[in-house]
């Protein structure tokens, strides 16, 4: 292990990572997502994720991509007019939503693998519970903000942008669209802090990166260990 260049002397054991004290699975899941349907979906996802096999993971990736690529089929015909969606009202307006908290963001990101190590971002203390800020009043109709400050293991680690990308992709896939994520390097943790921060929070750059097969492959690998 000491062969790794950015080996972190303080590797945290998996079991010692900060976690919610509630052990009830359902309660945890309810806390994070809220509705019964979402709970079902999430359970399913967890099952797939937990298997951790790359082939399954790839299938999920593929599915994700296909969902993105496929346009609504009813629109492909010249004859039909464009489907209308009512932008004025939102479904589920009256449903009760519990806000996401820092612990959930932590749980979503701490198990991402470091691109260089067989260790997770949590174990390497790249992601830390106390460096996650959530501004969310739980209102489904409003935007919510998540700010994560990450600590790269060495100050010139050029993989910082990749780690940040992995975190962003993970969160964007796991959480509903009302969340805005700001991913920052912790102050003083990196020699090119501003540049990395700028890149990680540039929507267009991130979107293009997600169409880069090479990068996507690496990111998928990083995310394959997520629980």
């Amino acid at each position, binding site marked *: 292990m000491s062969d790794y260049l950015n080996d972190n002397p303080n590797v945290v054991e998996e079991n010692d990572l900060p976690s919610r004290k509630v052990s009830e699975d359902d309660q945890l899941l309810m806390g994070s997502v809220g509705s019964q349907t979402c709970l079902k979906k999430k359970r399913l996802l967890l099952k797939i994720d937990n298997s951790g096999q790359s082939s399954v993971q790839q299938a999920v990736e593929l599915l994700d991509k296909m969902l993105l690529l496929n346009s609504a089929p009813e629109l492909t015909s010249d004859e039909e007019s464009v489907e209308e969606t009512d932008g004025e009202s939102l479904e589920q307006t009256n449903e009760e939503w519990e806000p996401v908290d820092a612990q959930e963001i932590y749980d979503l990101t701490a198990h991402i693998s470091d691109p260089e190590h067989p260790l997770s971002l949590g174990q390497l203390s790249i992601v830390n519970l106390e460096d996650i800020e959530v501004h969310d009043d739980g209102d489904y109709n409003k935007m919510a903000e998540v700010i994560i400050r990450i600590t790269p293991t060495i100050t010139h680690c050029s993989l910082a942008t990749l780690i940040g990308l992995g975190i962003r992709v993970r969160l964007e896939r796991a959480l509903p669209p009302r969340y805005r994520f700001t991913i920052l390097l912790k102050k003083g943790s990196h*020699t*090119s802090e501003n540049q*990395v921060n700028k*890149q990680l929070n540039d929507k267009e750059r991130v979107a*293009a990166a997600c169409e*880069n097969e*090479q*990068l996507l492959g690496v990111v998928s690998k990083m995310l394959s260990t997520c629980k």
Partner: protein
Amino acid sequence: MSTLLSEEDLNDFISPELACTKTTEVTHEPSGVDPNGEYVVEKESEAVSKVSITLSDCLACSGCITSSEEIMLQRQSHDVFLKRDTSRPLAVSIAPQCRVSLATHYGMTVQEFDLCLINVFQQRFGAQYVVGIEYGRIISLHRTIEAVRQWKAQQEGAAPCLSAIDPGFTIYTEKTKNELVPLLVNVKSPQQTTGHLLKAATGPELYHLTIQAVFDKKLEASRTECEAEVDCVITPRELLSLFAETDTDFVQFRTQETSLYTAACPPTLSAEISWSSNEGNSSGGYAYQYIRAQQQLYPGSCILELPGRNKYIREFRLVTDPHAGGATLASATELSGFRNIQNMVRHLSQRAHPHPQRRVQSLRKRRVNAITTSPSSSSSSFARPYETDFIEVNASPGGAINGGGLVNDAQSRRQREELTAQFERRYHAELSSVDPLDSRLAVPATPPLHYEFLQLDPQQQQQQRDLVTVGNTW
């Protein structure tokens, strides 16, 4: 550094702004190239504001200077020169554009500058030889003319061949338009040929420092097949840094002693020729000299000079006596600047590999047939660069006389163009001219000197294209 870098070479995650050696403009200390800041990989851009390798200096560097190239560049700096093994005898060569630029900087005539330079390198740095590069250029010219003639004989009517004298263009072609590599005229540049001549005169232990107008010359010298000929390449801007760091007051070495020319020239070469230049453009005049050489084969023929769509394209066309029909016998183009290179490579690539979108092709043909009434009459008065036998390509607009390594303190593009025009005038006015085609010239024999171009098969080319378009960075 090494483990991390090799990792990045595979999956280059460095974003361009972290990896890139380019910065915007030189706004302060124009002559001060920071010895440490120059090729630093990971540094905030604010800190690297002194260096400027721009795309016009190095075509290949727009987000694609890889770590390995940065390392290569690091091997070529005035720092490296200062740390050399001083037990090795030293030879210095200098490209003519650099002499004009530096003479302008020091307020000297080119001859005053040449003598001063010889004096400095002999007195201050113990150089055995200090020479110009015209010998090397004449050899490159001869070989190029032979190669173009062969190309024309074998490929009548096909694509033009392209000069490979400008390493910026060559590297760009190898890296991003590999399918055009077969068009490159594989003749080594004057920089390398001069190195060969110097080392042949002395021995491989000779240390050859050469002063060149463009940064890409460093990349050329770093090629495996070029290492034996050149040990270090610096630009005039770095030369100023070298003088500054060694407390060398250049003008103090001013001298009238013209015997220095001969004293600093190996006995196998003539000093007079080495410090000369030749007719044609200030980057070597390959296109013009090829046409001149062809003219010698056709008595009574005449050379037309045809303007292109902008001032950085010019065609020389050899035609039979206009009264006898004015048929084209040979043609060659001078073409420079990134935009013109872009149009050229798109045109030639398209010809080499017609676009997979067949629909576009057929549609285009139909429309062209329907609309244009092919005004062939206009073709005689304008350059048709892609129809010529040979294209002399330079990355810097206007050629090496506008090289990024020259001392050019201009703040705006217009000022820069003015200064370049001034350099151009001085180049033609002050350098004595030799005729490279003069059969009486005593040119030393050298074996053919060739590059080993990176050549990929079609499948590899596709992979390369994918890699380039995907972009290693995000």
